[in-house]
C-alpha cells in the first residue's frame, strides 16, 4: 500500500458532510414551502367563496326587507360551512356620491366590509371584500 492512501482527514469529512446537509436542507425547505403555498391557495379560495355568500345574503336582505336592513346596521358575526366571518358596517361619507348622507337616521348609505379570517390564530390570514349599499 502506498503511503498517501490513508483515507480522508477529519476536516475533509466535516466539510463534505456540511455541504451535503446544506443541500438537503434546501431541498426539504423547498418541498415544505410548495406544500404550504398550495394549502394557502385552497384556504383563500374557500374564504372568497364565503365572503361572496355573505355579501349576497346582505343584498337579499336589503332587497327583500329594506326596513329591516336599514333599521339594524349592526356588525354581524357568523359561520358558513364552518368558516367564520364578520361584517363591519361603517357609516362613511362618500365624497364621490353626493346622494349619500351618513348622518341621516337611518343613513342613506353604508359601507360593509366582510372579512374572513383563517389559519393559525397567532398569524391569521384574512380575506376582505367591501360592498357599498345605498337606499335611494
Amino acid at each position, binding site marked *: 500500500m502506498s503511503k498517501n492512501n490513508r483515507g480522508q482527514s477529519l476536516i475533509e469529512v466535516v466539510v463534505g458532510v456540511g455541504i451535503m446537509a446544506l443541500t438537503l436542507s434546501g431541498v426539504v425547505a423547498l*418541498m415544505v414551502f410548495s406544500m404550504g403555498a398550495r394549502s394557502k391557495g385552497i384556504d383563500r379560495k374557500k374564504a372568497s367563496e364565503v365572503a361572496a355568500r355573505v355579501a*349576497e*345574503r346582505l343584498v*337579499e336582505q336589503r*332587497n*327583500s326587507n329594506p326596513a329591516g336592513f336599514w333599521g339594524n346596521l349592526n356588525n354581524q358575526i357568523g359561520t358558513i*360551512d364552518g368558516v367564520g366571518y364578520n361584517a363591519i358596517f361603517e357609516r362613511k361619507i362618500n365624497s364621490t356620491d353626493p346622494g349619500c348622507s351618513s348622518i341621516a337616521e337611518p343613513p342613506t348609505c353604508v359601507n360593509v366590509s366582510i372579512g374572513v379570517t383563517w389559519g393559525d390564530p397567532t398569524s391569521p390570514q384574512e380575506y376582505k371584500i367591501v360592498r357599498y349599499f345605498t337606499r335611494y
Partner: protein
Amino acid sequence: MKKAGFTLVEMVVVVGVTGIIMAAITGVLLNSFKTKNRVNVADLVEQNGSMLIAELRKNVVNGVVSNCLGPSVKVLNKSDQGITTISCAGNKIASASGIPSVSVDLSGSNVTVDCTDSAFATCTTVGGKITKVVFTFTLSGGSAVAGPANFVEKEFVTEVATRD
C-alpha cells in the same frame, strides 16, 4: 505486492448505501407525481365549478326567477323575455332556452356532476316573491378507481339574490 482495489465488503456497503438513498429519492419523486395528478384534477374541478357558478349567477341576476323546483329553476330573461330552464339532471347541468339552438350543456365533459345528493336549487320567498336562489352541486374529476390521489370531489354552493 498487494493489488490496490475495493474488497467485496466495501463494494457491498457502497452498493447498499446507494440503494437506500435511491429508494428514498424514488419515494419522494413518486409522491410528487401523485400530487401533480391531484392538483391537475383539483384545478379542473375548480375551474368548471367557477364557470358554472358564473353562468348560474348571470342567469339569475339578468332575469326574473319564476319557478324553483329543486332540480330545476325557470328564469325569464329581462332583456329578451325568453324563458330559460336551468336544470341538474342526468349528471349534467344544462340550460335549456325556449330556442333549442341556444340550449347548452354547461358542465364540462371532464367532470362529473352529482345531482342526487341535495336539491340543486333552493329558493327563499318573501311575501310571495323569490328573493334568493341557492345553488348546490357536487363536481368530481379523475378516476375513483385509480385511487384517492387521482380523484377529487367538491361541493359548490352559491347564493344569488334576485335583482328584479
